């Protein structure tokens, strides 16, 4: 696909060192039509699926493709509203698929989507995949994990450092495609971006093993594609316990 000027994109996924399937999935998309592009902008999606019998793979794939297709199919309008509609559709689509394939019941997925329109950032987010913003030598986490340990951090019972190594840090409090309604976060106001800013989306296979400082060091300096290679390698050198997926968008 042709990527319009304005950003530098890199992305990579890796099965890691211990799993026998890759349950992560991701995509980057732009509408083909110029006018559509002006209304919708570009989007990057990542998802980390869970569930046996290939359920995790299926769930993350449906989430990524549905969020993308539904977002691009929405009528022109507020990207935030369109993202909400797209997440709802993906949520229902996974439930429907599980309903039609009882052996996959219980599958679900995280999903994090960044939309970039006129250098404004919008996002939608469920689960513990993450969206970071790197700006002027600093890294900040844009999304908040929907996880048990993050809940404890919020209540002041754990520090973020303790949460990062907590044995129950893999427990999610929200995922797309599960039985009931799920809480999802969407950007309240669009966040203005400037040339030089870097967006980094990743699954917990990366941020669980690579510190914010290392993310900043790699993604802030190297070309996007090289940084992805570097970060995946780093996670694998440190054990690679889970599937690893990263997408980097640098605003030019």
């Amino acid at each position, binding site marked *: 696909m042709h990527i319009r000027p304005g950003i530098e994109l890199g992305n990579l996924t890796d099965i890691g060192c211990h799993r026998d399937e890759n349950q992560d999935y991701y995509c*980057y998309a732009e509408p083909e039509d110029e006018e559509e592009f002006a209304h919708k902008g570009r989007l990057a999606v990542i998802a980390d699926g869970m569930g046996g019998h290939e359920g995790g793979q*299926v769930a993350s794939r449906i989430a990524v493709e549905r969020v993308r*297709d539904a977002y691009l199919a929405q009528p022109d309008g507020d990207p935030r509203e369109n993202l909400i509609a797209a997440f709802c559709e993906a949520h229902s689509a996974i439930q429907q698929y599980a309903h039609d394939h009882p052996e996959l019941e219980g599958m679900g997925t995280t999903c994090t989507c960044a939309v970039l329109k006129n250098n404004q950032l919008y996002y939608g987010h469920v689960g513990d995949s993450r969206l970071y913003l790197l700006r002027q030598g600093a890294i900040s986490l844009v999304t908040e994990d929907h996880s048990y340990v993050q809940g404890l951090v919020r209540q002041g019972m754990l520090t973020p450092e303790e949460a990062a190594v907590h044995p129950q840090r893999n427990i999610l409090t929200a995922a797309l495609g599960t039985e009931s309604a799920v809480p999802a976060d969407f950007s309240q106001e669009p966040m203005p971006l400037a040339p030089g800013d870097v967006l980094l989306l990743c699954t917990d296979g990366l941020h669980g093993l690579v510190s914010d400082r290392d993310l900043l060091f790699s993604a802030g300096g190297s070309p996007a594609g090289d940084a992805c290679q570097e970060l995946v390698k780093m996670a694998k050198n440190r054990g690679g316990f889970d599937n690893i997926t990263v997408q980097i968008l640098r605003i030019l």
Partner: protein
Amino acid sequence: MAKFCANGHQMEDTWTICPYCQKTGYQTPGAPPMKTRLESEPASSAPAQSAPAPGRKTVLLTDKRKPPVVGWFVALTGEQKGEDFRIRDGQNIIGSASDADIVLRDTAISSKHASLRYKDQKFFITDLDSTNGTFVNDGNDPVAREELKDNDIVRIGDVTLKFKCL
């Protein structure tokens, strides 16, 4: 600029097929992915509710598809012994077909064996011309249509189900 496949996955210059697109059995219904245009409701009707969280608005993604649960079956015998099955408002198809609402794995059960309908706070089970019939409680004769009360027993093929209403 690096090379990207139709799904925006970065590829090595030498690759002609994207390895990341090939993995699972799931296919987006319809045309090639980027051309797909799905039926969608206007954004304003999205079932989004806001929760009072300072600084960050959390939206609840609700399940539009499934009606509420109004009762359960619990399998007392057969391969699925101990499993529970949700009964939802409206019609519930019981059978061995994978698209039945309540899927029972038993060779003596027809693909669409019986229907359980909840309406006006009453439950009625109707046999759908099944090969081996539907039995309620201790009855030795198959039933055509029968009202179910809490704790009734339904026998379908070799499976015995206990009915619990909400």
